[in-house]
Every structure is written in C-alpha cells, then in structure tokens.
C-alpha cells in the first residue's frame, strides 16, 4: 500500500514537471546557430544531401564510433552470458518443419530483403536511412531464415570476421581522414563529387556501408546467440 502511494507521488511529481515543461514550451521560428551552420555548410563542404547522415557520420563521427562500440560490447556480453553453462548436447528437439509455402516464400524474399538493406545503407547520404537501418534490415533477413528453420545455424566465425573487418575499415577510414583531411573521421578524403549522385560526399557512403555491415553482424550475432539457447 505504502509502495503504491510512493509510486503515485513520484509520478505526480514527474507529471507536474512535465506539465510545466509543456506549458512553457515555445516553438522556435528560426534555426538556432548550430542548425543554421549545418544547413548552410553541409551541402557545400561535404556534398551530402541528407544532413542527418552528415551529422551522424562526420560532424559527430566520434559519437557514432562510441555507439558502435556499445553495440559491440552488448553483443559480446550477450554471447558470454548465454554461452556460460550451456550444455553441449545434441539437439533433441523434434520440431515440425515450416510449411512448404513459408519455405519457398522466404527463399524468394531473403535475397530481396538483403538487397533492400544494401540499398538503404549505400544510399545513406542521399535518402533517409543509413548504416543502422540497413544493418537492422540485413539482420531481419537472418531472422527470417531463423524463423523458417529453427535449427539453422549460422557460422559464428563468419559473423565475427565480418564484424571485425568492417570495424577495422571504419577505424582505418577515420585515420585516413586524420592524415589526408581535417581530422579523425573527416569524410573529405575523396573528392566530394557531383551533388546528388551515388559517388559523392567523399568517403561518407563507404563509412556508412561498413557501419551497416558491422551493425548487421552484431544484431545477427545477438539473434543467433538467443536462438541457440536450449528450450527449457
């Protein structure tokens, strides 16, 4: 009873704060200084059409590096926690196979989903989307395979190799930016190219593609680790 009351009080206080914030909120009419800088300079300096991508990959590239690291740590911890105490016994589950329609349908759709993922992360600097979304879509393709055949096993070695190689290339491109351009993760290693084409915005699409592969590998590794736990 006391607990309920405490929860109620806490929520009431938070609600009061939120209501105050909400009533005091005045929508701004003009872009603030940072946003104005991004709006004016992104297209000329970096050649990227999608300003959000420019911020994620170049202006705040270190943030993204940290984010990818956090994801990597999460995937590793999940793997370690789930691998501990797992008994290496033969799979004894008797699972009926998926129906013929689902099998054929997934074999038809998986390549298309993979291609959609590649499109999303290669075109990150032109259209909405980018490495994280593309990586999630690539992982969805792996998920579809897992759903169709629960006993399917992906090669952990392949996933790990893909993950680390993409990570290495990501860091390597960042260091190249340090050597040949303004600083770490600067995208102007390659020329900017014509605005609005696929090969533009320096190394931005390449970096985002590697982020996409890395994120896709990390998500896939999380999913496969969870899938390999035995049903209790």
């Amino acid at each position: 009873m006391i607990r309920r009351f405490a929860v109620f009080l806490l929520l009431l206080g938070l609600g009061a704060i939120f209501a105050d914030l909400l009533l005091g909120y005045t929508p701004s009419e003009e872009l603030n200084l940072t946003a104005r800088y991004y709006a004016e300079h992104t297209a000329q300096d970096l050649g990227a059409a999608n300003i959000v991508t420019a911020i994620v990959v170049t202006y705040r590239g270190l943030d993204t590096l940290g984010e990818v690291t956090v994801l990597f740590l999460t995937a590793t911890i999940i793997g370690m926690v789930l691998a501990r105490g797992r008994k290496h016994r033969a799979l004894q589950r008797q699972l009926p196979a998926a129906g013929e329609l689902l099998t054929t349908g997934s074999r038809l759709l998986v390549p298309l989903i993979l291609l959609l993922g590649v499109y999303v992360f290669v075109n990150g600097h032109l259209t909405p989307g980018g490495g994280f979304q593309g990586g999630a879509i690539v992982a969805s393709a792996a998920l579809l395979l897992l759903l169709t055949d629960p006993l399917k096993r992906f090669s952990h070695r392949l996933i790990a190799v893909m993950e680390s190689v993409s990570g290495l290339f990501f860091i390597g491109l960042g260091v190249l930016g340090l050597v040949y351009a303004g600083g770490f993760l600067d995208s102007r290693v390659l020329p900017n190219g014509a605005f609005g084409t696929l090969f533009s915005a320096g190394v931005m699409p390449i970096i985002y593609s590697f982020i996409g592969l890395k994120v896709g590998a990390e998500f896939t590794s999380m999913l496969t680790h969870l899938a390999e736990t035995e049903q209790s």
Partner: protein
Amino acid sequence: MDWIAMATGFILILMGLYGALTNRNILRIIVSFSVANTGVNLVLVAVGYMRGRTAPILDEAVPMADAVTRIIDPLPQALVLTAIVIGLGVTALMLTYAYKLYEEKGTLDISKCRDLKW
C-alpha cells in the same frame, strides 16, 4: 503537431514508469521500459520540429539555396537515431538477463528474487 507529439511523449513516459513500478513480472517491466523509451524519443523529435518546415534532406523539392528557411533542426534527429539503436541493445541485454534469471530460479516474479535484499 509538435505540441501533440510532446504531450503524448510525456504521457507515454509516465505510463511506462507506472507500469515498470507496479508490475511484478520482469518481462512486463521490460516491456513498460520500452514504452517509456518510445516516449522519450517522441519528446526529443518534437523539440526539433518547426511548423511549416520539412525534413533535412536536400533534393529537387528542397534546393540547396533555401535550405536555411525550409528545413528543420537536424540535430535532435541524429540524437534520437543513436538513442533508438542503443535502446535495442539495452533491451536485448535486459532480456538476456531475464532469461538467465529464469534459468537459475525458475520464476520471473521479481518479488521472489530476494538474494540481494537486505
């Protein structure tokens, strides 16, 4: 629109916290947290919105020259992008621990886990 989204986001945060504090099943607590997470994202995106403007992507519809007067603030969007991805990582971690806990104790009721209580 921004005002509506912001109010909805705040209400979602409150509801998520309420659910997380009053439920006893760990999985339900995690689900409530994910609702609160969505609410936070909604509030952050609503802060960056400006009326009558459009997405920060330059193409035929929004030429480079009048970008300053036509696009909205791109920075909150980049932040929320990060937040969503990290949110998935955190959720996956919580779920993994919930599974491990169930394997050890055979229950998901949080009031039964009294090992660390003093």
